[in-house]
């Protein structure tokens, strides 16, 4: 990108895009909390929240307001700066990843090509990994500054869990990157639009990646850091009011962004399945197709959000040794094998 191209219109365009994406992620996260309660209820033959507004649709607003109006408690023996920093960091790192995800192709507005991606960084995936591994600081700082044994144990658990699963996650992606030959998420999506989705070529890689995503998001069956019935809510035990809200909320934002990353890497991102976008844009116009593509990505994200919830209400939590066993002894060797096989096949095909 040429530095001279950074002018006022460009700045406004990016600011609007950032604002839009943050708003969308927050609203989706809000309604994921609602969906979680609804789906959980349905799976347990109950009805779920249906009192606040029609079908209980105002429930997230009621929950949010409740958290805002609750008393803010900062424990006397806590490290106050870090105690406040913890939830803020969790929230910020959860939002940061959305910057490199291509939310659609580009729109033509006022004679300008507006890309629906905040920053097409050529090391997009590395950026995602960098930010995701920052996410553990939110948990670690929160748990440590609470000055509480349960919180500390939870924080240590969380840190070791995330570090362990990041390895398998990275290894499973290396196989994918060997196929695409690019770290830019936009390029990966465009390659999938031409050559078919990566899930067809990398089913094992996808499975490993998905399991690791569950672990990174601290979702059941890997929710050991918060483990209600063992550690009294773990790292956010001492938190109250909106600081607790931010922790809970960042989990849902994380889920949304992770779903977007999984859809982008393995399910073609904004690719509309079984449709030739180039031919369609001639008949419908490029802008409509771009919006349809955004819709397709959104549908994929919603499916993965449902999957997150579905798994949560099906599988019980792992024991700590089982968690480590799965991460180190199963997933890492599997990911390595997957990587080697992919490498051999690529070399063999090239010859």
């Amino acid at each position: 990108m040429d530095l001279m191209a950074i002018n006022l219109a460009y700045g406004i365009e990016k600011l609007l895009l950032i604002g839009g994406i943050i708003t969308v992620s927050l609203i989706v996260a809000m309604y994921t909390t609602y969906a979680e309660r609804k789906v959980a209820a349905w799976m347990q033959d109950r009805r779920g929240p249906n009192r606040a507004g029609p079908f209980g649709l105002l429930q997230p607003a009621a929950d949010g307001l409740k958290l805002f109006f609750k008393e803010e408690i900062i424990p006397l023996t806590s490290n106050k700066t870090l105690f406040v920093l913890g939830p803020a960091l969790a929230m910020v790192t959860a939002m940061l990843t959305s910057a490199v995800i291509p939310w659609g192709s580009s729109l033509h507005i006022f004679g300008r090509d507006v890309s629906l991606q905040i920053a097409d960084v050529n090391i997009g995936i590395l950026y995602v990994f960098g930010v995701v591994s920052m996410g553990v600081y939110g948990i670690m700082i929160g748990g440590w500054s609470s000055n509480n044994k349960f919180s500390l144990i939870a924080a240590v658990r969380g840190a070791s869990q995330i570090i362990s699963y990041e390895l398998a996650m990275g290894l499973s992606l290396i196989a994918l990157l060997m196929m695409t030959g690019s770290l830019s998420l936009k390029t990966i999506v465009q390659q999938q639009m031409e050559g078919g989705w990566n899930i067809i070529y990398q089913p094992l890689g996808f499975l490993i990646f998905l399991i690791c995503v569950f672990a990174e998001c601290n979702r059941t069956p890997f929710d050991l850091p918060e483990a209600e019935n063992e550690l009294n809510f773990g790292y956010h035990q001492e938190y109250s009011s909106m600081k607790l809200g931010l922790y809970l909320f960042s989990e849902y934002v994380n889920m949304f962004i992770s779903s977007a990353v999984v859809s982008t890497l393995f399910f073609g991102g904004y690719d509309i399945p079984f449709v030739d976008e180039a031919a369609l844009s001639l008949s419908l116009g490029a802008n409509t197709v771009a919006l349809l593509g955004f819709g397709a990505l959104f549908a994929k994200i919603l499916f993965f959000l449902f999957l997150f919830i579905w798994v949560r209400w099906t599988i019980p939590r792992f024991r700590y040794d089982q968690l480590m066993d799965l991460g180190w002894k199963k997933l890492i060797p599997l990911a390595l094998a997957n990587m080697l096989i992919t490498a051999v096949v690529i070399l063999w095909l090239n010859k």
Partner: protein
Amino acid sequence: MSFMERLYLPAIFKGMAITFAHMFKKKATINYPEEKRPFSPVFRGLHVLNRDEEGRENCTACGLCAVACPAEAITMEAAERKTSEEHLYREEKYAAKYEINMLRCIFCGLCEEACPKDAIYMSETFAPSNFTRKGFIYAKDELLIPNPVTDKEKYDIAKGLREAQLKNK
């Protein structure tokens, strides 16, 4: 464990199929204040003190209900009927004060069975609410059924559906 069991994934998919199927099953919950479950004909709800067709109180303050009550929730004070009060009370003796402590009551229905005058009677009303404990001690003004002569509509509601059901049979 066999290899398939050690893989763990087939079991997970089976479990997920079960939870998914449960999403479409009939819900056990009902939307309570809007919908109510039908009562059995012998449902024992809050008590009412009955009146006869002319609107006179049935209770003669014999105290048998208070004696029968295993929770000792009922107290009463008797009084003698004056000559001008014949349209108010059916018997020569009546309950000037009649109280049931609904926090003590276990809704066993023994008072209903003990009553020789068909005066105490358990309705279909249930789940009372109040702000104080004192509010749960129901006196005559809360217990007495509305007058069937002057207030037929409220009387029928207080008697409840059960009466109508029994008549239809």
